[in-house]
């Protein structure tokens, strides 16, 4: 971007030189430094949405932490009445990466912005931008109720436990019943090996 801009300037400069036959000083472009650092505020192309309310109640963290001294050393929280260590990040991250140091009822992004618990997608996206992009555009996560009309997206923490984000295996719903009067097919019948010289392998065609 910057390179092409400079190139354009150079070409303009050259053409003016060529036209007038004498050199003219090319004005230095002064880029204004933004006072506030630019932060992520969603994808402009993504369809608009609102985030669904949290599906679990979160106790106020500030109620205890308001009276406690903030210790920023990374450590195991052995006596804490909440998560002491977590599998998320395999030990590379700890509480105050995502939880705001000052205001315990808020989360924080990697860039240091305060974010409410409901807008956890802004925090998660700090490290998982590709997933976050898919979430904005509807390829990851869930949309509630409709395919047309107002988009209500389910936030990250409604499905993933932020301290242990991998979703645990669970029991499946009942398998389909076999039609009345028919026995369930066994392994041998399903394999359908009627020609003994042709052996079918599992990997291969559809």
């Amino acid at each position, binding site marked *: 971007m910057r390179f092409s801009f400079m190139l354009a300037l150079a070409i303009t400069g050259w053409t003016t030189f060529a036209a007038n036959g004498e050199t003219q000083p090319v004005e230095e472009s002064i880029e204004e430094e933004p006072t506030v650092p630019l932060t992520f505020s969603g994808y402009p192309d993504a369809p608009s949405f609102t985030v669904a309310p949290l599906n679990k109640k979160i106790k106020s963290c500030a109620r205890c932490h308001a009276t406690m001294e903030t210790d920023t050393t990374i450590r195991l929280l052995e006596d804490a009445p909440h998560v002491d260590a977590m599998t998320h990040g395999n030990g590379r991250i700890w509480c105050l990466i995502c939880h705001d140091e000052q205001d315990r009822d808020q989360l924080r992004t990697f860039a240091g912005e305060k974010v409410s618990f409901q807008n956890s997608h802004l925090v998660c996206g700090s490290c998982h931008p590709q997933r976050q992009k898919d979430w904005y555009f*509807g390829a990851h996560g869930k949309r509630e109720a409709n*395919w047309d009309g107002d988009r209500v997206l389910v936030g990250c923490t409604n499905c993933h436990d932020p301290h242990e984000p991998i979703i645990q295996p669970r029991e*499946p719903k009942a398998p*389909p019943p*076999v039609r*009345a009067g028919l026995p369930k097919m066994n392994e041998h019948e399903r394999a359908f090996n009627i020609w003994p010289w042709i052996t079918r392998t599992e*990997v291969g065609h559809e």
Partner: protein
Amino acid sequence: MSECKELKNKDNIDTYKRKLLTTVGVAAATAPVASLKAAWGGATLQEFMQDLFQDHYQRMTSEEIKDTLARIESKAMRDYGAKITCENTPPRPNVLFGYALNISKCKGYRDCVDACIQENNQGRDSQVQYIRVLEMPNGSRDLENSEHYYNPETVPTKGKYYLPVQCMQCADPPCVKACPVEATWAEPDGIVVVDYDWCIGCRYCMTACPYWARHFNWTTPKLLAGEINPTTHYLGNRPRPSGVVEKCHFCIQRTRKGLQPACMEACPTGARVFGNLLDPKSEIRYVLENKTVFRLKEELGTDPKFWYFTD
């Protein structure tokens, strides 16, 4: 010339039918109704005759459709003791439905199957299920040796992946070509539907379908009044007679009103993406444009509108 003749004949038949129905109707009204009720399976003789002469869905006038819907509602009341509303929501203009399923997210919970059974008033004991979740070893795609009766303590099983299969709503559907009575066709919004009252139950469509998406209804669905989904559509989840072929219809009764199909709403992993293929801003279009998608048995040229993707 011959066309003229045919039209004339058709008119004649229609007039004849109408006359007959009116006569029968009058007869039914004047006859002792109580004794007739038992004779026609609880319906009045007029209803019975109207059922008998009911035309193909696409040929019925709006008046006739209205009568048919009313008959379906009263039949559901008689058979199941449930008050249902049968609708005939038309397709939306500039909408073509498409579905995408993320197989890296599907964990084989079968929540979609369960929701589908409840939404579409399928018999709780019948084998008719519009969605089959196939379990296959990682790295393979041998559909014929896949397992759909899997029932371990917990899913996903290590080393396996899950591939839900349902009607792909092909743009060039072989089932429609196979039907000898034109009881199945593709609607303008891309949904392949069945007129259950026109289907003769020959099951040619089932053999023509490469996806095992069509199911024969061997029994009248056994449902309790409390279990029945009261919001129904003529081409969708209304209580069906036995001996006809059924299939997934992308929950026509929901999707034409802007709602998600029941399977998508029920999926806890968010693996399913549904939407309008003609809307460049839609989620389904994002998936098709940005993910590695594939379709099952694409080489058959049926142009299915159901994509699978991984990420």
